[in-house]
């Protein structure tokens, strides 16, 4: 989850998010270097005591400062396109989970084998137990097996919502009448929180998603227990 005054991304929980993090770091470094150079140039030129009144143009420098940025841009574009296509890779999912947005909760269906369905409401602040996170905890977590490619199909029952969690690097819009697919894989066990990311009414800020990635035997236990309880 995010920490107070955090300025960077949360730690990645999926290989794709790791790639995005590295790309972001790379691009930000390029931007910082360019900005530093430009700032330095502006300052030195502004504070310089001498002025050359006869400089009108210079073909050489114009060529250089056109070609060099073009090269820098390819250094940004190539990793960017690589990740873009990586995100669209065909994967062979092991499990399909349907996440449906409602006003104001998410419902999950695991219907590959038995039909497991449940709703996940936010735990109100007054009902939190010590150690739980305000506005992020849900009464039912979406449990997934760790290191398995999962297909998530996201839709909505009423208005637009968006199923987003920063750590696995997922954001998929939930549109009524449409089924949006995303595939992801949790690289390690843990609980990853997300929040609805499309304005959907009064309690838009209060319908979080909690994903819990656990080893496969634990996942199987959990599904059996959930089906029994239903």
């Amino acid at each position, binding site marked *: 989850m995010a920490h107070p005054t955090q300025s960077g991304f949360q730690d990645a929980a999926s290989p794709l998010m790791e790639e995005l993090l590295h790309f972001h770091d790379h691009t930000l470094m390029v931007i910082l270097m360019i900005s530093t150079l430009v700032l330095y140039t502006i300052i030195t030129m502004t504070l310089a005591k001498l002025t050359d009144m006869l400089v009108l143009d210079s073909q050489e420098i114009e060529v250089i400062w056109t070609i060099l940025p073009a090269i820098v841009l390819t250094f940004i574009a190539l990793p960017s396109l690589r990740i873009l296509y990586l995100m669209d890779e065909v994967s062979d999912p092991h499990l399909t989970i349907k996440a449906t947005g409602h006003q104001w909760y998410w419902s999950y*269906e695991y219907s590959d084998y038995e039909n497991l369905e449940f709703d996940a409401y936010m735990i109100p602040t007054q009902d939190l137990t010590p150690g739980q996170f305000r506005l992020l905890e849900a009464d039912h977590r979406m449990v997934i097996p760790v290191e398995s490619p999962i297909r998530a*199909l996201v*839709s909505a029952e009423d208005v637009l919502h968006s199923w987003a969690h920063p750590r696995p690097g997922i954001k*998929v819009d939930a549109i009524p009448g449409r*089924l949006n697919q995303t595939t992801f894989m949790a690289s390690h066990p843990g609980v990853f929180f997300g929040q609805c990311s499309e304005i959907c009414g009064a309690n838009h800020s209060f319908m979080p998603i909690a994903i819990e990635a656990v080893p496969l035997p634990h996942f199987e236990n959990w599904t059996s227990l959930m089906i029994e309880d239903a």
Partner: protein
Amino acid sequence: MSETIQEKLNNYKTAPFDARFPNTNQTRNCYQNYVDYHRCNKALEAKGQDLTPCQWYMRVYKSLCPNSWVSRWDEQIENGSFAGKI
């Protein structure tokens, strides 16, 4: 490759990648499998054959389609108001 339908059904994990629907929008994938299941049933029943092959479509649509959509369509089929051609 020459798995029998029974083997395919036994080894079913989840809906496999369908090259007809490679993109993010899987609405048509769900709808197509639902409709194909009913069409398969209708066709094989008319010929008096075993309905097991149609189970594949059922497993796929159950994996993909939200349950609310499936119940709504099932009701429409019972009423005779389902818009698709079966």
